[in-house]
Structure formats: C-alpha cells, structure tokens
C-alpha cells in the first residue's frame, strides 16, 4: 500500500492505496465522488475525464499513486456550491446535449478544459475537441450546439 496526499475539488485528501488502483476508482470508491463515470476503462470513451492540475485527462489511464500532490477537479467540483448549474451544464440542458446522461460528466469536464484553451472555437475545432468523448444517445449534434452556446455565454460574461 502507498500513502498519498492530493487535493480533490479544493479539499486535501489523504489515503492509502494499492498501486494498481486507478485514479478513477480512487475518486469513486475512496472519495465517494461517483460523478466520474467508468465505461470502457481503457481510455477510449472519455466518460471518466477529470482535470489534473487544470488539464483534462482520462482518470482510468492514471494510477492514483501518480496523482500524488496533484490538484484534482472532478465534475462535482465544477458546479457552483449552491447546486445550480454552471455555464457548460446549462448549455447541455438547453441544447439537448444529453439523453441518458452517462457520458455527460466526461463531456462537461472535457468541454470546460477545451473552452479554457480555445474560448471561441470554430465548428471544426469543436468537433475535434469533442472527439475524445463518446456518446451513444444524442448523435452529437446537440452537444456541438451546447459547446457553441457555452462559448457565447462565456463571451457574454466577460
């Protein structure tokens, strides 16, 4: 077992983990943060996307021990504390960017990081930015629309 310490959604976490524990399993099972979803567990689907030191990564392809000292943000850490929706979440709801919702946390985290890097993307850039996340319900059109709306909303807020 390895002792580790990291920051998760602004709070310091200490734990003892087996080396093979992925960061995704650690967040879900040890931290109780089940908003990070696991589907393929080998880096294809993007449902488990989280932010590590501000960069979007797949938490199923990272070991918890590799996040020692890191600043981790999950979907739970992206919403305002009062339980309301953030700009990206609101846009997904308004544009039918989700149906069953299983892939949505990964999309919202990816889109947040994507818009951080590229605040006013073209449609081609949006499609490429979304290519690391799979959705089996929507056919993606609503998701692309949601990213467009979120970018506009962010621009209006600045």
């Amino acid at each position, binding site marked *: 077992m390895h002792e580790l310490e990291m920051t998760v959604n602004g709070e310091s976490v200490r734990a003892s983990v087996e*080396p*093979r524990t992925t960061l995704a399993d650690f967040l879900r099972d040890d931290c109780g943060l089940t908003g990070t979803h696991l589907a393929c567990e080998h880096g294809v689907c993007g449902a488990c996307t989280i932010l590590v030191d501000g*960069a979007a990564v797949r938490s199923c*392809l990272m070991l918890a021990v590799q996040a020692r000292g890191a600043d981790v943000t999950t979907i739970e850490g992206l919403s305002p504390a009062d339980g309301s929706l953030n700009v990206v979440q609101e846009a997904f709801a308004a544009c039918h960017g989700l149906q069953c919702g299983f892939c949505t946390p990964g999309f919202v985290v990816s889109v947040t990081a994507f818009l951080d890097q590229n605040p006013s993307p073209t449609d081609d850039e949006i499609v490429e930015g979304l290519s*690391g996340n799979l959705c089996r319900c929507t056919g993606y059109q609503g998701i692309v629309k949601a990213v467009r709306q979120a970018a506009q909303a962010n621009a209006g807020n600045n």
Partner: protein
Amino acid sequence: MKSAPFEYHAPSSLSDVVSLLAELGDEAKPLAGGQSLIPLLAMRLTRFEHLIDVTGVAELQGIERVNGHVRVGAAVRQSTAEHDATVAAAVPLLARALPHIGHFQIRNRGTVGGSTAHADPSSELPAVALALDAELEVAGPSGARVVGAEHFFQGTWMTALEPDEVLVAIRYPIWSRAGYGFRELARRHGDFAIAGVACAVSLGNNGNVERAAISMFGMGSTPLRGRAAEEALVGEHPGKVDVDSIAEAAVAEMEPTDDIHAPAWYRKRAGARLVTLALTEALEEAGRVDA
C-alpha cells in the same frame, strides 16, 4: 478491466531508474504517461511485477536546442512538445505530427518518449524519428548509448531497448533549407492510422533537393523509409518533381498486411495518395523557405 497487482516505484534520478531496472530485469517496465501501458495492463494483455514511473526524473525532462538538433526529454508530455516554440521553429515535422496522436486528453498525459519506445507500427512519433534520422539516447546498467532511429525500431512493439534499459531523450536533427509534410488516414480523428507518412526535404546550394525522407507508418511492422523513392528525389528541382511517380515508388517498397481495418492493397493505394499530398507540401515549403 483491472490490472493485476504490481509494485510501484517513483525514482527521482536516472541512476535510480537504472539500478532498479538492473535489479528487477524483465519483471519491471518503465511507466511514463501510461496511455498505452495502462490499457494493456487493464486488459491483461501484459503483466509486470514492477512499474517504474519515470516522469519525476529530471534527466528525462526538458526541450533544448543544442548542436544542430533539438533534444526532447523522453518524459516530456506530448501536449508540452505540441505547444513548444523551439519544436515549432526547429522541428516542424514533430509539431505537425503531435496533434494526430489520440485526443487532447491523451496528449496531456502521453509522453514523446513513451510513444516512441512503445513503437506501435501505426503510431506517428516513430515515423517522425525515422524520417529525420533522430538519435535516441538510451541508459542502462552498462552505461549510456545512442541508437540511430533506423536501428531502433525492430518490429511491432519491439525496439533496440534491452529490458534493463530506458529511453532518456530523443535528438531530432534540425534540417536546413527544409520543408515538411505530414499526413495520415484514420477513420476518426484520434484513431490509430490506417496509413500515414512523414516527409522531409532539404535543398542544397543549387536549390535542388539534397536530402529527402519519406517515412511511412501503418505499412509494415515498423515505420519504413521509401529509400529508392528518396534517392529518385535527390538532385531534382522542388518545382519539377513528378510527385505521383515518387509516391508510387515509395509504396512499392512497403509490405503492408491485411487486417480488420484495411487490406494491404488499400493501404498501398491510400498510402500513395498520402505521400503525394505530404511530399507536395514539403517541396512547396522548401521552395518558399529557399526563395
């Protein structure tokens, strides 16, 4: 999809990595970004008793321009190299290949050295190293050595690295009066390529092609150079090359196999078209740089 148990080591110096590898031998595997190794472990396609995380080792970090080449530490993240000004200016071929790797979430973790040492036959970075005649710095119990890219890639997932050796850095030569082109064909952006090519041309004092590289991937068990096609290019004026016949000559040297993604004939046909596009881009760029 859970890995079998292993022991995790996170040494902070290259000498510690080397002694761990010497002690543990083929029961140990260096772990960098983990974007290929972790899925292989999760699917239990491979298994190691020990993983040695090399991302905290200072000697494997950094991008610097020295003596006619750019040295990229093996554990430099792909996203770091992708946005690095030195790489963009001096090794444009690398900068153009990097965005084709997986998705941005993958490149945030994946490393330049990790992908190169993993040596997947359809991956981008081995082909870039082979195209530019890169030199690979390797460390092991018997000391450091440098391996040329043409000797490094030996087969699917097989390289010149011994089980007790680790890739330290890759030196990409800076080509002068050069132009580059990079193309790949994949079903979706981020998928492994069905076929792809990295092209480089460098012009001599008379303005004609002096040095050329056509390095293809997805066309065999390692990246492959179209050597005869390259020789046919040397001495030609960049504006007067019969690019289509060079492309045909390049794929004629390849021996792709049939698999679930594409039959061999399709890889050759698509590959020739990719060479045409990439080589045209490289020749035009070299002509502009030279003008």
